């Protein structure tokens, strides 16, 4: 929220290379980035520039090929799978473009899911958290529904509730409005803005300029590198030309 906030994420010279069929894809090459607690950061850039890759690495779903990643001051790039699972579970809240609710589980069970991966959380506490999160996104009246019985906007709100339930340090949202119509999209963005106002740290990928402006800070990615806004515009023009 303010520049005085503590540093939550610090990455330095981050690279990611995908090797497929003897083809090397440099998805990220030398990214520097810091996110402080309470900040609302938007990442934008053309399709294929590495936004999702960056977010996956931030969310510890993926490991970088090179570079440093400090989360809460701790290096996390070389933790094992179990440790990374634990951090993902406690520190990260994911919001996906396609909601990614589990079709076999009810709304309630979907939101409860991250909490079930925590040991020793009393069930009363769990229930309280689930209901709080659902109330926060105004979906508490739909606990027994299955995702297929909800509209896209409702599903995305449940997904936000699921991300909130674990009280994460940061919400990572990858094009959260990409599968929604503009009305529902705006409702979800408003929800994120409210959450930010209440103190949540958010890092969101979007290429919708309307929503980019909503963030406090904008990071432009081009071809796996962070670039300044003017530079991006110039590069875009060059590519089109």
């Amino acid at each position, binding site marked *: 929220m303010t520049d005085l906030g503590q540093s939550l994420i610090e990455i330095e010279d981050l690279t990611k290379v995908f090797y497929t069929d003897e083809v090397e894809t440099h998805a990220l090459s030398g990214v520097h980035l810091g996110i402080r607690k309470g900040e609302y950061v938007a990442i934008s850039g053309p399709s294929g520039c590495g936004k999702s890759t960056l977010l996956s690495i931030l969310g510890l*779903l993926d490991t970088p090929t090179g570079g440093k990643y400090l989360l809460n001051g701790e290096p996390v790039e070389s933790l094992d799978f*179990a440790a990374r699972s634990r951090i993902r*579970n406690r520190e990260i809240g*994911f919001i996906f473009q396609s909601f990614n609710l589990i079709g076999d589980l009810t709304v309630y069970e979907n939101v409860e*899911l*991250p909490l079930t*991966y*925590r040991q020793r959380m009393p069930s009363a506490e769990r229930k309280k958290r689930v209901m709080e999160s659902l109330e926060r996104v105004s979906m508490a009246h739909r606990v027994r529904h299955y995702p297929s019985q909800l509209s896209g906007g409702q599903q995305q709100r449940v997904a936000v509730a*699921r991300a909130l339930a*674990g009280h994460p340090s940061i919400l990572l949202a990858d094009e959260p409005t990409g599968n929604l119509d503009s009305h529902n999209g705006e409702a979800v963005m408003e929800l994120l803005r409210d959450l930010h106002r209440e103190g949540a740290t958010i890092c969101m990928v979007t290429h919708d300029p309307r929503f980019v402006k909503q963030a406090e800070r904008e990071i432009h990615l081009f071809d796996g590198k962070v670039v300044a806004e003017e530079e991006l515009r110039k590069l875009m023009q060059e590519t089109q030309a």
Partner: protein
Amino acid sequence: MKGFVHDLRYAMRQLRRSSGFTAIAVLTLMSGIGANTAIFSVVNAVLLKPLPYKDSSRLVVVWQQNPHRGWFENEVSGANFLDWQKQNHVFTGMAAFESLFLNLTGHSPPQEIAGERVSANFFSLLGIKPLRGRLFLPEEESQDRAAAIVSYSLWQQHYGGDPALVGRQIFLNGKSYPLIGILPPGISDDYLGIEAQQSQVWISGIEPFAEGREFHEYHAIARLRPDVTLTQAQAEMNTMAARIEQQYPESRGWGVALVRMHDQVVEYFRPALLLLLGAVGTVLLIACANVANLLLVRGASRRKEFAIRTAVGACRWQIIRQLLVESLLLSLAGGAMGLGFGAWGSQILVRLSPTAQQTTAGAISTPLGLNGLVLLFTFMVAVATAIVFGLAPAMSASKPHLNHALNESGRSFSASLQRRNLRSALVICEFALALSLLLSAALMIKALAHLHRTAIGFNPNNVLSVKIPLEGSQYQDPGRQIEFFRQFLNRIEALPGVESATVSRGVPMNGWAGWNFVTADNSHPAAGDVPDANYVVVAPHYFRTLQVPLRKGRIFTESDSKAAEPVAIVSESLALRYWPGQDPIGKRLKVSSDAKDKTQPWLTVVGVAGNVRTQGQYAPFIPEIYVPYTQYPWVLSPRNVLVRSRGDPLALVPAIQREVAALDKDVPVSALATMDEIVSGPVQQGRTIMWLLGGFAALALLLAAVGIYSVISYAVSQRTHEIGVRIALGADRDAITGLVLRHGISLSLLGVAAGWLGALGIARLFAALPFQIRWLLLFDVRPADPLMFACVSAVLATVAVLACFIPARRAARVDPIRALRYE
């Protein structure tokens, strides 16, 4: 028809294209259908094959029975037989016979063959016509006019098919008989059921019948009059038996039992075969469930194809037909391979017969070829199988989901849920069926273990048993027989590697002879309550050779001669029953039902021997009376020689043959067997069933494991995305592994729970069997055994966990990035 041919061609192409699927499905079906073919070919050869006699459904076997003493199918007394024959109105004819072993001489080397002495009307009653010569004439019934008829195989093998054989003389037990006829091929003593000895020769001269109604020495058969039912005949025989009981006190307690000859022949095999038929049916059902599962998965992946077909105008029935043709092709391929597998497997089943080791006897010796009926059976099973496993998947796959399937992204939630439920239900059924099979096999294994733990009372290891029949005029004098065996046993015991040798009438588990006796303490028991015991005639070293322990007193010695005081050794069970709490040594008994009988001396008990399981592991200890052969040489028949060796007892055979020939070159050596073989005879069927059931249960377990593996694997592949989400939300590897394992375990536990119902049914079924059949199948094992249920369930659950472990590990290695990307 044209549509069908087209379907067929397309189906072939489809199956060839997905060769992995086809191979697995065909192999699965092969195992299921093959097991059925194997068992059915035996059922066909044993249970369904009519006896080779004219109008055989009217033939019955006539037994005497004494339920009071627990004897049910007992041989009949000659006097009773003659009364029945005269008085009955229900049979067109009755014939008696007794089984014998005969020394066939006149050709070298001498040979002991099985045969029967029969009533003159025996073959005409069975409706057998001679191949050559004629049948017996009524006047040949008397002993001094006795004639002989030989089997086709004896004619071929022993006489080389000599066309001039009829009319010659044949030498049996040193006596000559006119050979009057040759039977057609395939005729033997099948009417004896499991006691069939593969008789080669039949002699007449059964008259005069042995006197005394207490001597039960003859078999009897009869042909029902066409207008009389078995029940009516039984009623009349009951009346006659009651009359005889009243007239003759020694017949007290003896009734008559009529058994259809076909039932008689198959009664020993029927329960086992029906049990096995049930088992292979179960295996086939499991195989069907597996293939149905594969087809469901395949159907799901071919939804687009069906949608296109529907879009271009195919109706649902046409799609179902197409899929059923594919199923039929799979099933027929599996059936064709199953035929080969079955033909091979049925050969193993020959071991069901307890006598199979000594002779390839009786019903089971009929060739187990793949005849028309077996082929038809296999074909029908294959077609039925195709429908069983093919219909549900075809119905499911052909359900119209036109829109969804065509725009691939749309997921039709309810339809896939239905398919998933069907798949789960199939796996649950597989586990339930496998549990039932496993339980049956476990019960059999336990029964066998109990049988093996049964103390038999002697040590069968390293003992050889042979028969040395001394027949003919030179051995008419019993003193000559004593002399022969005294010399022979001395020579044998002098051989290197021999520990001891004996001659005996009566080898444990290889026949017994119940004789009446009275004790001096109770010399006039009520008629019908006269005690009886197995009467064993032995040489002194009998107890040492079989290692039957002597509990008290002494064993026989050479000085127990004809001139000395007549002596006996009794078994513990006899002593306990008739002299409880007293010292049996010095007690006296007489082997006769009448204490005043002057022909039999009083015997003084000089020793008590341990109990021996004379009638096999399934039977209780029966009282035994041992007497020295030197005092009763004329009772010594059959003449079994037992030799205990230090090494392999079979290695002694040439030396024994040499010693016999040195004493008398006309004496054959027959019925070679180790005591171990004889002891395993009664449990042979049980052991075969155990191995087969165990094998089928293992197959069922394997199929169930494959079934749950494929369902869980498929579920994992379908749930990759979900697993990605879960990983993103912080699930670690153990959580994902657990998720998949829980799925598998819950399916298997549902199956186990369902299986418990089935298993309870099976336990009920076993419990409801007639006692004799249950005893033969399960011995003393309780069918409803909770511990067994628990063990079998644990085995199934373990197998399920192991089968699910591979897909579970795969699930835990899902790359969340990739899983989430494709959505």
